[in-house]
């Protein structure tokens, strides 16, 4: 991932000299861009926009809103995974475990234990984050590829626990639809799908904000240092293990938060969220979008889920292997690794004029 981000992007922020004040004002305006996008995305459900070819029917039909909410959750989830992969250089194959812990934790506490949603969510979040800290503490004793294998093995335990249905808690293969007195009315029912959409949007905003803040902080600079050369960080007298554990725990917590939103969006848990395939998909999303960039992973996640969904719908018309969404996505991914190392986010840097604007914007990630 050495070419993912220009090194200059990770340079420490310098105080802006007075002669750069106009540039600074421009930067400030450009900084409003994401906020503007957020506002546009938030008001979109008020318009009955038909988008032929992209979505079936009008934009704000419940089905489309649910699809978009799912895409948004995965955008945020991919961004949380990028905190490990793109920012810290940790190749974890068990990120789906914390997502699934958030999903099943919330679902089981609401449906089986009858807790109110907010309590269940808090317990699930705290529990999953603790789990991430514990398992991270063990897995980080290894490095590189061994770390990838160990996280994969831990995630596999989650998959086994869910599939074997110990104590009849998880519903096994059937999954567990969320329900019960604990769910607030405004999150239940087809008419309220728009609230779920906003919830997913809020989740993406939170993840992007947190990841950007962390990446811009002194801790973030240490994480970037770990990604580039771990020994150098050690030589500086910092403890790489501790910083990696912080990143691992935080990413796990953000993934669990995504799980809590996801279980509400799809209305229940199904065992496929524990599969190793999901973590592999996260990796695909991040690499397609552009690892180590602010928007790349989000866009990659949204696009991947959208394509996955659309290709499944179109599948019946396509011949042979093209009828398998995973074949198409896997093939795109392999081509992307060869010909598009920086992912979608590098598109901007490949076009001259936009590149100028983009590089000027980069220091914003620090402030």
């Amino acid at each position, binding site marked *: *991932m050495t070419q993912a981000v220009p090194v200059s992007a990770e340079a420490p922020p310098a105080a802006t000299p007075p002669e750069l004040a106009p540039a600074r004002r421009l930067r400030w305006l450009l900084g409003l861009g994401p906020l503007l996008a957020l506002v546009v995305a938030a008001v979109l459900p008020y318009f009955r926009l038909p988008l032929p070819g992209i979505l079936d029917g009008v934009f704000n039909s419940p089905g489309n809103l649910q699809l978009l909410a799912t895409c948004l959750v995965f955008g945020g989830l991919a961004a949380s995974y990028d905190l490990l992969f793109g920012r810290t250089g940790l*190749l974890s194959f068990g990120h789906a475990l914390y997502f699934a812990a958030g999903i099943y934790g919330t679902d089981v506490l609401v449906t089986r234990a009858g807790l109110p949603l907010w309590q269940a969510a808090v317990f699930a979040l705290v529990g999953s984050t603790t789990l991430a800290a514990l398992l991270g503490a*063990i*897995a980080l*004793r*290894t*490095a*590189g*590829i*061994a770390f*990838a*294998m*160990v996280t*994969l*093995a*831990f995630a*596999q*335990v989650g998959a*086994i*626990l869910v*599939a*074997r249905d*110990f104590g009849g808690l998880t519903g096994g293969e059937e999954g567990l639809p969320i329900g019960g007195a604990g769910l607030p009315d405004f999150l239940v029912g087809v008419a309220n799908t728009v609230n779920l959409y906003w919830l997913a949007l809020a989740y993406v905003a939170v993840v992007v904000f947190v990841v950007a803040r962390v990446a811009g902080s002194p801790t973030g600079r240490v994480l970037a240092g770990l990604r580039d050369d*771990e020994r150098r960080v050690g030589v500086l007298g910092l403890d790489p293990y501790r910083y990696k554990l912080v990143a691992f725990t935080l990413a796990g917590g953000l993934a669990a938060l995504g799980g809590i939103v996801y279980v509400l969006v799809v209305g229940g848990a199904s065992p496929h969220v524990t599969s*190793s*395939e999901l973590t*592999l*998909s996260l*990796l*695909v999303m991040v*690499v397609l979008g552009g690892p180590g960039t602010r928007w790349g992973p989000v866009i990659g996640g949204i696009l991947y889920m959208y394509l996955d969904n659309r290709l499944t719908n179109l599948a019946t018309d396509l011949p*042979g*292997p093209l*009828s*398998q*969404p*995973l*074949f198409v*996505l*896997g*093939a795109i*991914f*392999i081509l992307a*690794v*060869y010909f598009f*190392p920086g992912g979608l986010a590098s598109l901007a840097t490949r076009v001259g004029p936009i590149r100028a604007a983009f590089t000027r914007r980069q220091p914003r990630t620090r402030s």
Partner: protein
Amino acid sequence: MSTFILLTLTGLGLAALYFLVASGLSLVFGLADVLNFAHGLFLSVGAYATWWAADHLPGAGPTGFGFVLAAAFGVVCGAVVAALVELVLIRPLYSRTIEQVLVTVGLSLAGVALLQATWGADPRPFPRPEWTRRVTAIGDAHIPNASLLLVLAAAAVLALLLLFLRFTRVGLVIRAGVENREMVTALGIDVRKAFTLVFAIGGAAAALAGALGGVYFGSVSPAQGGSLLIFAFIVVVIGGMGSVVGSAYAAVAVGLLQQFVNYYGTAGLGDICVVALLAIVLLVRPQGIAGRAVTA
């Protein structure tokens, strides 16, 4: 007592399956630093090729010599596919480890989907030779012959691999490459040829695991390789990466533990114990049983 013998031998059968997958994985990782996610695909290729050959290849069939021919065809297919993957996909990304891993991830997703598109997602009944359906009495235990076949095959592969690594020139290059790749390259020896060979050997072993796994489970499905692969990863980490002997020890430990706990405890508990064993080994000895310092 009979239960004990039965569990031991079926556990060893499972261990044999893990070893066949893990040995190639471990060698490939040790030499080329590639964590090969597509290794499960080689297994599926071997299983499907054997299944296909038993019906279509002249002279092959589900019984006797016909099955040997079918399995041999599967093994050759696995080796060829693995060598092609190395030549076409891995080699252009020489020494860019993360990209190599990413490509195998993409390949594992696309490859399984391709198998699924061709033969459907449902398991297909596997042509099991008559002999493997029967049981052999050892003491007062009745052991399925399929388990015995797996144990024998894995022992043979282990012996052949060790002979190959210890007593041939290429084996020497591979062993030296696992120890220190830069030094071997500096001596003017082309390690890349060894990469292709190791991939082919690993692919052949995985394909054999696919063919015999088909006999053991009685069916083939596209996802079979993936689920075995995770336990093979665990075996590789416990055994120490790059060590074939370590993989053999670890495979036996994992197979027996899984079988015994699954029988005496709840089903599924054995799988969890295996991961607990992994955690313990990592805490006590991060480099694995037979491994030296783990490099990033």
